[in-house]
């Protein structure tokens, strides 16, 4: 099967500081990848490059057959295919949950309002907060907000979902409800790249694990191998600290 995401020799600098060093990564359709590593290792930057929230300076990134470049039309097309969930939820506080979900389908995919709202309710049901649809983000708990954010991304019917530490800003009690939704999504066959420290989740759903440090991919392995038989010393050290 051909790759849905392909990164070749990607380098990125913030001013003089190099955040990504020679990143090579291929993702197949329906593959689930969990990216872990210490903070500042470039994992968030890596997935933000995939939908061009960050620019890379060298190398090539191809998503679903479209190469990411300065061409803004291409970028918008890619972004419509790639859903993203953020650490801070980033719901639109001036809109109700239903409007948060139906806005992009109406204005980007040009769906009729009624159809977009049905789609939104469907996805809210999927993450089990359909009863909160009329509320504003500020009235929801953290876990509910993050599930709403997942529903919002799903409403664009993306081929790929990117998760940028989706549970790091949540109270321990709420982490599970968000992870349950993500596990569900994974079982439905979504292509997912997840940056997270939830190793239980990784063991349950990930096909492949990536360990990053100082802007490099240090180790990439099948999930079982990664946890039971890590090759690099840096990975061993990291795993010993968080498991």
């Amino acid at each position: 099967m051909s790759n849905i995401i392909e990164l070749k020799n990607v380098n990125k600098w913030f001013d003089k500081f190099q955040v990504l060093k020679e990143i090579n990564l291929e993702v197949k359709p329906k593959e689930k990848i969990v990216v872990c590593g210490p903070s500042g290792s470039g994992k968030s930057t890596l997935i933000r490059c995939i939908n061009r929230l960050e620019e890379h300076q060298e190398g090539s990134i191809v998503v679903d057959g479209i190469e990411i470049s300065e061409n803004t039309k291409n970028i918008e097309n890619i972004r419509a295919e790639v859903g993203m969930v953020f650490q801070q939820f980033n719901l639109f506080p001036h809109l109700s949950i239903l409007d948060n979900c139906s806005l992009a389908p109406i204005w980007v995919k040009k769906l009729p309002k009624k159809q977009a709202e049905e789609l939104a309710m469907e996805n809210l049901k999927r993450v089990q907060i359909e009863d909160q649809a009329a509320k504003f983000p500020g009235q929801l708990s953290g876990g509910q907000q993050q599930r709403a954010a997942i529903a919002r991304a799903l409403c664009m019917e993306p081929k790929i979902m990117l998760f940028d530490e989706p549970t790091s800003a949540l109270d321990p009690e709420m982490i599970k409800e968000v992870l349950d939704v993500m596990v569900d999504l994974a079982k439905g066959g979504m292509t997912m790249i997840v940056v997270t420290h939830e190793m239980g989740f990784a063991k349950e759903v990930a096909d492949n694990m990536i360990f990053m440090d100082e802007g490099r991919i240090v180790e990439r392995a099948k999930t079982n191998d990664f946890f039971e038989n890590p090759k690099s010393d840096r990975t061993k050290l990291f795993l010993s600290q968080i498991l």
Partner: protein
Amino acid sequence: MNLNLIKPNKENLYTYLTIGISLLGIGFIDILINTFLNLNITGFFPSVISYLTPLLLGAFGLHFIRIEYSGNKILDTINKNFNSSNFNAILSLIVIFILIKYVPLLLNWFFFDANFLGSTKEDCTGEGACWVFVRVWFNRFMYGMYPDAEQWRINISFLTLLSSIGLIFILPNRFKKYIILFLLFIFPVIALNLISGGIFGLEWIETGAWGGLSLTFIVSAFALIFCFPIGVFLALGRRSDLPTVRYSSIGFIELWRGVPLITVLFMSAVMFPMFLPDGTYMDKLMRVIIAITLFEAAYMAEVIRGGLQALPRGQYDAAKSLGMGYWRMHFLIIMPQALKLVIPGIANTFLALVKDTPLIFVVGLLELAGMIGLAKTNPKWLGMATEGYVFAALVFWIICFSMSRYSQNLEKKLSTER
């Protein structure tokens, strides 16, 4: 009985209350007699002490009744709100005494000693204000030199405006947008044609004859409507990634912000025509409105930019990640939030705009304050400047205060707490 004068306590509550209230009462009686009977009963003291007596008496009085948890609800309320410490007690007393002393003076000038009836300056015999002046000139203050027989045209325009605004508040949301569209796009054209005339057999009335409060409204309304969108685009332009757009926006904003409005108006009247091709003529009023609009748009742009900068980057990220382009992101996600944040700043700019309109006198257009300036130089009405400008102040205050209240309501209505 064991009275502790330094630290009043609850045991002898009623003794303290009696002492305190008596002292406080004497203080108040002193100031009341002083105000209403013009008698200084403490005149035998040196002047500074005599002046401060009521304050000192009041402060001691309040000190004696400052008893926490006295069990008396009224006393507790007074202590909590006016009398929580010596400093606060004195502050409260000063404010109350100033009100007692000067509000009656003002009221006397305004109402009790003022003259309302009559038709000439000689009818004003009282000590207070001569409102006859405003009454006689009222028509000019409202309509300027606009011919009396044609004033119904202005009246109809403003009644339409007011009733449409009224409808916005009454009608359900579904119809509101049509009325707003009407007000923004159709109404200005109708009103302008109706007031200036020249079509449908209406007599042409040149803008030089427009004036008074109606001109204030016309200038402010057009400037308000146009400066807002221009400000929005300038604010976006200043943050644009395209250097040409960014630098021209910065240049425009800094140019207009760096020049006094009075100079801008003067230039609009004197210099601007030189840049127009020969034979074209642009109305003086139109040039003035354009000048004020661009001037205030520069301020508006900076206010809105403040709102844009206050938004977290995550909002941009989220909008982009959903595939929205620049315009959809800004008009669906960013602007609604940014504008809501800066409603107080926008209201500020709007108020400043309304209050800047009198400056159009430099090009010979006389709105409310300008008409008053003209009327006070009429030989039959010399010495009426105070009444005139107090009247202008009152009218401007009413306009600005209503706008300010409206902005506060809007703020409350739009808040969806984060």
